[in-house]
Structure formats: C-alpha cells, structure tokens
C-alpha cells in the first residue's frame, strides 16, 4: 500500500505537459483550420472595401478607403441587383418545380405497383451520371427547337427533374409505416389527398432540406445560363460577377468591385442556409441511415 501511495503522489506532481494539455493542441488545430477555411471569405469582405491599388498592396489587410462605394457601383452602374433578382426567380422556380415533381415521382415509386418499377428507379438514378454541363450541346439544340432559348424557361426547365430529390423523397416515404397507407385506403382517402394531407406534412423537414440544397445549387449555376442566355438584362448573378471583371480602371482589374459583387451574391444563399439549417441537417441524417 505504501508504495502505491508514493507512486500516485509522484505522478500527481504538476509538470509542463499538464499545462500544455491535449485539449490545447486540439483547440489550436481547430482554430487554425477554421481561420484557413474562413480566410478567403474574410479577404473578400476586406477587399470589397478597397481600391484596386490597395488590393495589390499585399500588406494592406485593413478596411479600405472605398467603404461601401464598391457595393453601390456594383448594384447601380453594373445592374447587379437585376441579376440577383433574375437568379432569385430562377432558383425559386427550380425549387418549387423540383420539389413538386420529385414528390409526385416518389409517390408513384413507393405507393404504386407498376411493371419494371425497379428498372424505372434505376433509370432515374442513372441520370445522375449526366449532369447539365455534359448535356449542354444537345440541350442547347433542344431549347432552340422549343423556342425557349434566352428565356427563364431555358434556365429553369432542365433543372426541374432531379434524381437526387426523387431518391431522398423515396427513401423518406419508405420509412413511413405501411399501415398508414392501409388505413388511408380503408378510409377511402385518394392518393392525392394522401400526398397533400399526410405525406407532405410528414415530410416537412425533408422538403425544407431538399429546398435548401436545390436553392443553393440553382443560385450557383454559371455555365448553362452563360451559354443559353444572350440578353444581358436576363442574365443571372454568377454571370453578372463575370461582367464586373470586364470593368477595368487604368488597366487594373477592379478586384474591389468584383469582391463586392461576390459578397452580394453570397448573401441570399447564406440567409436561406441560416434560416433552414436545422431541416438540412436532418435531411443528411436520414441519408446516413
């Protein structure tokens, strides 16, 4: 016993390593990685207040002399407000269209027996292999043939069918007990009433989650709108930022202006994310199951 007590006393003596505990190292690493990830964003916000020459001074990392002037220029002179509105309309149409279509598709897949059901589902999943950029050439042709080119239809239509959303809703519907459907059948509740009164209220979280993902995805579209929209006033915000790059002052690219545009373009999806982050996390939790 005596030796035991002695050894405990020995290990209890404070040493330097106790102060530099594991927690400290871990926290240091975490802070470093957060700063690393946040740095581009912080720099963008800082640069958006600077003049081009201030931007090029690498040591100048304080708030610049421009204040909010770059933002005013971007919104006023370069019409960024219009592009943002276009993007917002586009993203909203895609969200509503995609959610509605995917809900109906998942309803059919889960609650109806039809031939080659599994093959149909597999085919829907296969479309994941063909994202919009791969289809640009035939899609452009199709839009031209339909007379949709250079219109809101052309930048929303191709995004509305979504294998990911169908898959998520299908998995969610399958987790709803079959006896609820049985009970609805006994009550003579039709499929559409069942969808509206039962499935949609029971899928609120999933719908919110899919909406967030879809909104951000749609908001960030660049290549397809660039190709299919030719009228500048109908363009979306990501392409609008590209227009800002065209502006130059005595041969210098207006980085301050571009950063102001980028920060402005970041705000709407950020707001959506902040408001709906809880259902979004839930959506991903279900995916992990």
């Amino acid at each position: 016993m005596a030796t035991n007590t002695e050894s405990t006393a020995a290990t209890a003596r404070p040493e330097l390593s106790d102060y530099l505990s594991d927690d400290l190292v871990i926290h240091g690493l975490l802070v470093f990685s957060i700063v690393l990830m946040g740095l581009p964003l912080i720099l963008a916000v800082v640069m958006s207040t600077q003049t081009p020459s201030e931007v090029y001074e690498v040591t100048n990392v304080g708030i610049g002399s421009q204040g909010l002037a770059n933002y005013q220029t971007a919104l006023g002179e370069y019409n960024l407000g219009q592009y943002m509105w276009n993007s917002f309309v586009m993203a909203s149409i895609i969200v509503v269209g995609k959610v509605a279509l995917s809900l109906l598709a998942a309803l059919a897949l889960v609650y109806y027996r039809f031939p080659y059901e599994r093959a149909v589902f597999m085919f829907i999943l296969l479309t994941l292999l063909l994202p919009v950029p791969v289809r640009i050439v035939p899609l452009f042709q199709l839009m031209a043939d339909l007379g949709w080119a250079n219109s809101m239809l052309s930048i929303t239509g191709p995004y509305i069918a979504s294998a990911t959303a169908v898959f998520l809703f299908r998995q969610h519907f399958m987790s709803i007990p079959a006896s609820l459907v049985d009970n609805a059948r006994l009550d003579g509740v039709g499929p559409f009433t069942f969808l509206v009164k039962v499935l949609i209220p029971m899928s609120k979280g999933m719908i919110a989650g899919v909406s967030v993902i879809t909104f951000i995805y749609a908001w960030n579209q660049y290549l397809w709108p660039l190709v299919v929209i030719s009228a500048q006033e109908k363009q979306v915000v990501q392409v609008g930022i590209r227009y800002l790059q065209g502006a130059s002052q005595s041969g210098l690219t207006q980085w301050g202006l571009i950063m102001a545009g980028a920060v402005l373009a970041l705000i709407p999806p950020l707001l959506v994310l902040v408001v709906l982050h809880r259902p979004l996390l839930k959506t991903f939790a279900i995916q992990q199951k």
Partner: protein
Amino acid sequence: MSHIQLDDLRKRFGDVEAVRGIDLEIEKGEFLVLVGPSGCGKSTTLRMLAGLEDISEGELRIADERVNGVAPKNRNVAMVFQNYALYPHMTAAENMKFGMKSAGDYGDDEIERRLDRAADILDIPELMERKPGELSGGERQRVAIGRALVREPEVFLLDEPLSNLDAKLRVQMRAELLKLHQELQTTTVYVTHDQTEAMTLGDRVAVLDAGQLQQVAEPQELYDFPANRFVAEFIGNPAMNLVPVDVVEDGGEVRAEHEGFSVGLPDQAGLDDAVGQSAHFGIRPEDVSLAGNLPADAPTHEITVSVTEPLGESLLMHCDVGGDEIQVKAEPRAEIRPGDDIEVGFDEERLHLFDQSGDAVYHSTSATPKTSEAPLTE
C-alpha cells in the same frame, strides 16, 4: 345467417401460397379470434377481409354480399393496426376525423357527435387535442380504436392491437376490449399470436397453421378437445406433453404403454380403433398430480425431475420418463429438487391420443364437445 363467410379463401404471393383454402363462417356480433404462429397466414386473411390484399381464389361474403374485389372503403369495415397507424402530425381528434372528412359523406355535426361518443366510450376526451407523440402506448391504441369506432363499421378488424403494449397494460386493454365488445356487439375479427389473448377474448377461436384452419371452436373446447397435435401444443401454457406410446388391449382394459409408464384408458369414442396402433399420448402439465394429492389406490408412475422452474403460483418441473421429457405443474413450495424421483398420477379425465398423422383420435373425458366440427384433413 352468418355475417362473414369465407369460402375456400386462398392467397398466393408468387409461388408461395400463404393462405391455403379457408372455410369459415362468422356470426353477427361474434368475437372471433384468429390465432397462430408467425407466418401462418392469419394477418393475410384479415387483410383479405379488409380488402387490403386481393383474394387469389375463393369467395368472401360480408352481410351476404360478395365482396371480392370491392374497394376497402366500400366494405364498411374498420381496422386497428399493431403499430396504431396514427398520423403523427395530427391531433387525436384530427386523426379520428380524418377518414370521415375525406369520405365527405358526413356533415360536421355528425362527425362531432360521433367523435364525442367515441371519446366518451373510450374515456379519452382529455386526450383529443394531443398529438400521438404526446401519448403513451396505451393511449395511442385507445385513439386508434376510437378512430375505428367513429366510422361505426359493420365489422371491426384488429391486427395484433395489443402486441406493442407492455404486459400489464396488455391485460388491462384486453379487459377493456371485452367490455367494449359487450357494449357494442359489433362483429369483430381479432388476429393474435398470443394464445392467452385468443382464449380470453374469443367467443370462438380459429387456430391457423401453415395457411390452413386447424380447428374452430369455443376456447374451453379447444383446450379440452384439441383436434390435432398442433392445436394441443399451441393452446395452453405450458404446452401439452406428447409422448409416443403403443395402445394395447390387456385383459379387457386398453392401456397406453410407454417405456416409463403404462396408463389405463377409460372407454370413450375412438378408443377401439386405436388399439394395436402406435400413437402419441397427450396430457397437460396441469393434469399431472403428485402422488401425495391422489387417493391411495390411484395408479402412479415414477419420474425423475431434471429442472424446476418456480412460477410463484405453481412449480413447473421438467421431468424425464423413459427417455422422454414431460412437464409437470405442481403446487408451489413443494420440496422437490432436480434429480429427485417423484411419484405422479395422471388425471383420467384428461388424456388424449393422437394418431401418426397428428389428428386426435381419442379424448378420455366423459363430456362431449358442444360443437362437433370434424378435424380438418389435408
């Protein structure tokens, strides 16, 4: 006239025949229990009654009307599910009203009247504004039953409604279901795998195995006159002991001969045909008594106790007799240890014989079964 009539009802899922020809008549106001082990086709049969499964073959009549292919909502049946099947986003009242509102055949006053009545019958008015998530298991099941009540159906179908409840609540809800049925007198078909529930609830009990009816009878009759080995072993807890014996005639007395014992069989119907055959001798654990409780001249047999299970109200012993195991229920606090040899006697009124195919050929009791439905053979 019977209320529900099943005529050679069959259900196939691909190559598998889940229900293999069921003939059954259910009287108006009767409480019929369908009981059997998992996968015996009892739930499928119930779902065919409800219209949730198509009928592969055979005929189903409700209130003398052929209902094969009639949509569930037009059969005037209501079903209660094992997992309650309540909509989680609706309050209890909304859940109970949902079906009636969707049907659109009822005015708001009528719906409210029925809702209040169902809530009163089930004693749940204070739960009506709560959502299923805020209710306990028993309360949820009450709401689910209430939802069936408001439809005022001709037939209640209950699919293992008590299986998700804990043991104590199950006993309580069982009694309440009985009371409810006595009050409403609605024809009820109740599916369960629990033989105790079947015995306590049913006016009649239909025992199913492998998609076929084994026996349909009143509970006591199932217990006293099992039609075959399956029913004998399924009904009663612990199960009936079954040991192989030879039936021999010895000086005018017919006896069941086993390596470990020899029992005289009282003369009853079917005994003469069994003579000279090998059969299975059946006796329930509760019909075996310790020799000390028997008259001095009663025949006794020596058996060896291998395991004892004190159940509180009785002592269950697993015993060895001539190489076979039988279970014996003795009075509690009997001073018996594993390894002891004990003397027991069999109740002469409670002996059964089953032939090689498993059908009952002989029951020793002098009473006669009330309803005589021939044992069903393949």
